[in-house]
């Protein structure tokens, strides 16, 4: 391959578990680095995404900053992949979705026992939470989804190598997991 594909990754309302599983491809990372180079990613610590071939986003959208980052990825990435349960259906953070956000914040910061002089965090540097946690596809167009909590290293490897080889990625029974 004459030119390496440029790949960006980020975690929004996720736990970085999908990134850890990505690192679990172990020595295959070296083979991957023959094919791709990394743009914005925890691996490079680049803060903003430039033009990329593939963007991989972990986690759902739970606050205003998540929305900005996701739009940055969509704008710059030819192919955008949602990785993991949270990116796909909101996952664990979305389990607050049937509750009122104001009640959640009140209970967590004000009314729980032992919270004398508590207050709801309002530092301007903190991104505002959204009233609901959204899967990525509710905010921007997503081209591919890799399910799992997290997807196994083998699933990630299979998916990416299929994609890089120009094939429609397929997981099959052994690699497709929602848990």
């Amino acid at each position, binding site marked *: 391959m004459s030119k390496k594909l440029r790949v960006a990754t980020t975690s929004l309302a996720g736990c970085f578990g999908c990134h850890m599983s990505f690192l679990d491809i172990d020595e295959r990372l070296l083979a991957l680095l023959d094919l791709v180079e990394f743009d914005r990613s925890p691996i490079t610590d680049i803060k903003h995404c430039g033009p990329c071939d593939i963007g991989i986003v972990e986690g759902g959208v739970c606050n205003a900053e998540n929305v900005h980052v996701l739009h940055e990825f969509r704008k710059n990435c030819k192919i955008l992949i*949602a990785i993991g349960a949270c990116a*796909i259906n909101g996952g*664990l953070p979305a389990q607050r*979705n049937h509750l009122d956000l104001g009640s959640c914040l009140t209970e967590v910061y004000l009314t729980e026992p032992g919270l004398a002089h508590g207050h709801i965090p309002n530092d301007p540097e903190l991104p505002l939470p959204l009233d609901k946690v959204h899967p990525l596809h509710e905010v921007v167009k997503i081209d591919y989804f890799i*399910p799992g909590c997290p997807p196994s290293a083998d699933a990630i490897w299979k998916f990416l190598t299929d994609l890089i080889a120009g094939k429609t990625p397929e997981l099959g029974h052994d690699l497709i*997991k*929602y*848990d």
Partner: protein
Amino acid sequence: MNETFQLDGASVPFEPGQTVMQAALAAGHYIPHLCYHPEFKPHGSCKLCTVKINGRTMASCTMPAEADLNVESDIEELNALRRSLVQMLFAEGNHFCPSCEKSGNCMLQALGYDLEVHATGFRHLYPDRPLDATHPDILLDFNRCILCELCVRASSEVDGKNVFALAGRGITKHLIVNAESGLLKDTSMALTDKAMQVCPVGVILPKRVGFSVPIGERRYDQRPISEQALDDAPRQPVRGDGCAACEE
């Protein structure tokens, strides 16, 4: 057993009174299904088992087998529709597989795997549904109910207890417990009930055994549901002789 119909090009023998689904499974041909259970009258509600018969779409679990029918099932047109049905069921309830005790033993999840459903795609409803942990041995998590009515059928037809019912209509339809308090502790439900065994998803759960079999070693982690449904054959006789959907 001399008469046959055609299913995806194969000849399927059937006995008089069998449905297309029953004859197909007995002959080793899998048709995806969720609300169908071999021990109960067909319900015809989930529509996962929809097939094309002589060009028309029908629920194979309620369609009586007839000689020379031309049935199509494993075709992309129908599998795409089945994928959408599974996706809509996921979007309509709160199905968080990573935190569900039923994960790996769940038919909805297993169908998702088998149909290669990678994501829901629809806007999730995130409904506000209660838990009922009042019973000493049994937990009810209504977040995962897909309204197949198998527990309703099992409780009334086998257990003779009538513990469950469906209430409401359309999008407000939901599973309820038949007790004045609405709580499971005020029913005669027991761990040994048939209604404990039939839930295809993670609504009716025995307490204190949640993860005794680890994630990754469960039924549908081992082999696809399409293979295991056939292992369950030969199918047992159907209770009653009519189809619930037709009688309503």
